[in-house]
């Protein structure tokens, strides 16, 4: 199938599936993912691996747009209000998930490095599907605010921890042809470059966007500016080894603090980006390899239980300690379950860096991502609806 046909098919089938699953009170995102799974190489095979690679560009643009939106949570006044608690909750839920998963993996006979890497990857919560559920539910309120903050901070934290883990493993095992000094330098350099460097690039692009936007009045032109900035930002990040994720997040954070037109801009974006997101989630679904699920083994089960339990307990403990609203205490854990692109990306990076560990980590993470990507959006929707925040965004000022 050529690319245009597959894009058309993806969009039409995604729309259909989105409508269909709504009847079962399941988020549209899950419908898109299911369509992807069905069309993908592991089931029907209508979308080949070549198609997926070709469509990967659209997927990256979509992820850039999503993180750009998520970045708006760093709006100064909002973050001053909830920043401290968001940081604490993220730290607790991520750490607990990491510790449970790593401990379980060790218990089931995995090496220290494999256990630690699995723990690090388990920290990630998918920003895309979570944000899509928030939008779909049109939700607003303390749970929504905290959730947005947490997924933004969580991804930064996860990238940082993973960077540190990789640096530590490299330092203990050594890389051929490098002295100890060079090793330390490399490890520290890449860690700092991916975080601080990405933030710096994001800030500069955000500044450009903010400086230019007052001179752009038409909504169409606004979209051109926005799309141009995001594409440029993602492209440059890839070219110079930065993290497109952090960069996009930083663009969004800079924008929202620099100009009052940001709300207008985000509004314009949310009117036009749904096709991108549909493609993004169908591709994400098509890349899921359902056949891996039965092969995940005991470590896979430990990973799923440890991560789900860690996130749930951690969020609950932290929210109780901070005496947050009852809705947050009860349901935050449910909303943090989704896991997708970031975990897959980190797994690929493990595969290229440490081929010896690749089989275990790939099998476990890629299999459990299938599970979390299926239940995550539904679980998040359940949390938002039960917390009573669904549909409140229309009444409050639209934040996204």
């Amino acid at each position, binding site marked *: 199938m050529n690319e245009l046909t597959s894009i058309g098919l993806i969009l039409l089938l995604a729309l259909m599936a989105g409508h269909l699953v709504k009847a079962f009170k399941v988020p549209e995102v899950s419908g898109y993912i299911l369509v992807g799974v069905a069309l993908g190489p592991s089931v029907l095979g209508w979308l080949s691996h070549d198609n997926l690679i070709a469509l990967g560009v659209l997927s990256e643009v979509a992820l850039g747009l999503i993180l750009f939106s998520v970045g708006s949570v760093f709006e100064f006044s909002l973050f001053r209000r909830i920043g401290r608690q968001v940081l604490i909750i993220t730290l607790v839920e991520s750490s607990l998930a990491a510790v449970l998963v790593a401990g379980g993996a060790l218990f089931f006979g995995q090496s220290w490095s494999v256990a630690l890497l699995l723990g690090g990857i388990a920290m990630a919560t998918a920003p895309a599907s979570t944000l899509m559920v928030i939008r779909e539910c049109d939700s607003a309120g303390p749970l929504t605010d905290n959730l947005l903050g947490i997924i933004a901070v969580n991804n930064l934290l996860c990238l940082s921890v993973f960077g540190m883990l990789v640096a530590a493993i490299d330092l203990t095992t050594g*890389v*051929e*042809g*490098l002295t100890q000094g*060079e090793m330390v*330098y*490399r490890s520290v*350099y*890449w860690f*700092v*470059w991916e975080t*601080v*460097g990405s*933030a*710096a*690039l994001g*800030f*500069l692009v955000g*500044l450009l966007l*903010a*400086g230019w936007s*007052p001179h752009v009045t038409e909504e169409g032109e606004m979209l051109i500016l926005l799309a141009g900035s995001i594409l440029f930002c993602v492209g440059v990040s890839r070219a*110079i*080894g930065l993290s497109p994720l952090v960069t996009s997040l930083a663009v969004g954070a800079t924008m929202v603090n*620099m*100009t*009052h037109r940001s709300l207008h801009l985000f509004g314009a974006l949310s009117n036009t980006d749904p096709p991108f997101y549909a493609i993004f989630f169908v591709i994400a679904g098509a890349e899921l390899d359902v056949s891996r699920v039965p092969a995940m083994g005991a470590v896979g089960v430990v990973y799923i239980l440890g991560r789900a339990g860690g996130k749930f307990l951690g969020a609950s403990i932290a929210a109780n300690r901070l005496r947050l609203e009852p809705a947050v205490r009860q349901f935050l854990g449910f909303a943090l379950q989704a896991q997708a692109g970031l975990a897959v990306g980190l797994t*690929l990076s493990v*595969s*290229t*860096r440490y*081929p010896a560990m*690749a*089989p275990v980590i*790939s099998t476990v993470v890629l299999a459990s991502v299938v599970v979390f990507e299926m239940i995550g959006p539904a679980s998040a929707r359940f949390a938002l609806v039960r917390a009573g925040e669904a549909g409140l965004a229309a009444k409050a000022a639209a934040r996204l």
Partner: protein
Amino acid sequence: MTAPPSRTRYVTILTFASTLILVGGWLMRPRVVPRHPAPIVPETELEQLARRRERRSLDAMAQYFAETAGEAAASLVFFPAGQRSGLVWGDRQIVSSPMAGAAAGTSLVAATPAGETSLGLTVLGPHLPIVALESTGPLAGLSPVRPAEAAPDAGAWVVAVWRVGAEPAFMAGTFLQSATATCGVTPVVEVVSSLALTAAMTGGGLFTADGDLLGMMVSCGERTAVIDVASIRRVLSAARSADGRLLQRYGLRLTALSAAEAQHFAEETGLLVREVWLGTAGSLAGLRPGDLLSVVVDGAAVAGEAALAALMAANADPVTLSVRRGSTRSTIALSAAPGGATGAASPASGVVFEQAAPGYGIAVVQPDSAADRAGVRAGDRLVSINQLQPRSVDQVRRLLDGAGPSAWLEIQRGERRLGVLLEARP
């Protein structure tokens, strides 16, 4: 940007810092370590995959040759009596390797895909490396071989195809070269390949990978060789010549006398027996090289071309010959070949004795000597000199020395007796 002046300062500082971070960070990149692209698939699995891929191409190759052999087998028949194959040469003609117990004019049963069919032997001679058979009607279910237009390049794939019963068998190898050689007494061009040829393959064909015929497997004495298509054609056309027919019919090679021979034998008209194949009609009738023949037709002796024509006449069986050997003259009846009937009754003891080789073995022929010029070769056995059989080597020497300017030597070479005129250099 709509920001208060104090914020502008922060923004300026941040912008400056960000630019510095990006530029500085880019310049401080650690050197790239060449890293072998590590496959996500484990090494062992990749090896297995590669092995499986190679295995698949080998299987595909075997499959290809099996199909080529299957197509080529449509041009092959099997002779249960001789346990060998035959190639369909024309609409009705089949060529094969000579087999024991077959006589000219007799019929052989051949197994074809359409069932059994009876074929008459048309070309068969003690001197020939091949036999030809003909059917009375078209050969059902068979198609003639398609000869290759040129020899393949060295190293090209070839496949030998023969039949074992009704089933085609094949063996693939590579072509090496074409080489001139002698098969029995016949000069041929051999197709040399990497294949290990066995007697079971005789009568089968060697084909290119496209199914074009390169040659036929035949027995050349003890060994099995492939003789090329041109050689087969040459042998077939030579077998149709007068000489060839005479050899097939009586196992005799007859010629007119040369000047030197006429002087030696003191006769000019007779047909000189130059070659007699052992076990053939001529040999059984008692003819020997050096005999001078004329044919008795209607009570009158005829010689020369007329004698040859009389010998080859279809209704002449037996033919009455007037034979002069030395000074004696006799009349014998010669009937056409019972052909290769060399069946030796085994004695009651169950032991077959090796026949004593007649005459005296010739170990060396000096180059440019009288014997060399006459065509005597090392390995030949000298049977008689001027029709006299020597009883000792001394006698041989005496006979040769006392022979005068010319001597007629009777020589045994393999399965035939030859006569040569030894002339002292004038």
